[in-house]
């Protein structure tokens, strides 16, 4: 989604500069929530305030961008859900899901593998956190608690 956003916002409409876009993506990756939303919200605000409008207009701009980026999902998922709950036990749907579900597990696994990179794992301490959280998550400890604890341990371990 990010290349699409960059093309429209930077190249076609010239709402924000390339360096603005890069730092927006960096911030969107570190704050909670889907990256597409975070960048849409941020771009909405930056684009409007770049045009010289005050903060309130900027907030409206970001709200408009966020709603716009979520609208297709709303429409599609509403249609698909009502359809899916009806055809859930259809043999063709079952047949597709029979292959799709194991494939999704593969996708999740490769997402995890791709995240094991130099940006996320900087030294042995990262690996200690990884192993501890991995074991703890399998012991059915609340993931939100684990995220909070790992944030605290990052604060304590790194200087």
């Amino acid at each position: 989604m990010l290349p699409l956003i960059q093309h429209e916002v930077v190249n076609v409409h010239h709402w924000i500069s390339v360096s603005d876009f890069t730092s927006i993506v960096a911030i969107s990756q570190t704050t909670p929530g889907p990256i597409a939303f975070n960048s849409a919200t941020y771009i909405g605000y930056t684009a409007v305030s770049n045009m010289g409008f005050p903060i309130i207009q900027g907030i409206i701009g970001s709200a408009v961008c966020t709603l716009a980026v979520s609208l297709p999902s709303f429409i599609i998922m509403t249609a698909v859900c009502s359809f899916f709950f009806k055809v859930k036990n259809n043999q063709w749907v079952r047949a597709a899901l029979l292959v799709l579900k194991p494939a999704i597990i593969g996708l999740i696994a490769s997402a995890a593998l791709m995240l094991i990179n130099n940006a996320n794992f900087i030294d042995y301490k990262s690996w200690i956190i990884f192993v501890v959280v991995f074991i703890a998550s399998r012991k059915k400890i609340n993931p939100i608690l684990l995220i909070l604890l790992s944030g605290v341990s990052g604060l304590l371990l790194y200087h």
Partner: protein
Amino acid sequence: MLSMAGRILRDKPSGSADYKGNKTLKSCHKEFHLNSTDAASYKKQIGKNLSFCDLLFFFIMIKHTHMKRHLELFLVFLKIGAFTFGGGYAMIPLIRNEVVKKKKWLEDDEFMDMLAIAQSMPGPMALNAALFVGNKRLGFKGSLFSGLGVILPSFIIILFIAVIFTQFKDNPVIERIFKGIRPAVVALIAGPLTTLGKAAGITRKNAWIPIIVIIAVWLLKISPVYIVIIAILIGIIHLAYLKQKLKR
């Protein structure tokens, strides 16, 4: 007044399972049926007689009946949205913990159905998943609440950073916290894979599917979109082949 509220409530999809066994609402329906003879006159009066008192009563009714579930849905996804660091896949363990383990709104295999659909539809997977759960539980209105819940935290946080905390990225404390969170998020994504694998029906016979996907996506950098399309096609072609075989 009560009967008019009954009329308004009846216009909601009262046939759905969510409204069954609700005493207040049932009594309200009775009230409606008692007065249903002059329903036509209500239609005329609704514009004139919709007083503040009626509205207040209506909102109190909602608050004590099915609105509670909408609010619960909203709050659960608000919590999930606030703690999802690092993109859509990071949301999977959180949704599973809340929706499958705590609230028991979905079984593990339904959760896999949800992941399959959320992944194969356009739009951010996290929002799609939230909309699916909301829709499954309380229909379209439910999806409005869960969707809003999942979007709102990131919206507020980004606005806070954009307007006030513009030095966020270069703040050393924030950077240290994230050095701890980043590997933890990877561990949280990898953690439930074996349990989810069982729910997805992975056995020794079809273990080749996830392995090929990992090779294709991780090593060959093929887009997940193609994986989803190809997987669906293989499933359908396989069934068609089996049917053809049975005919002969």
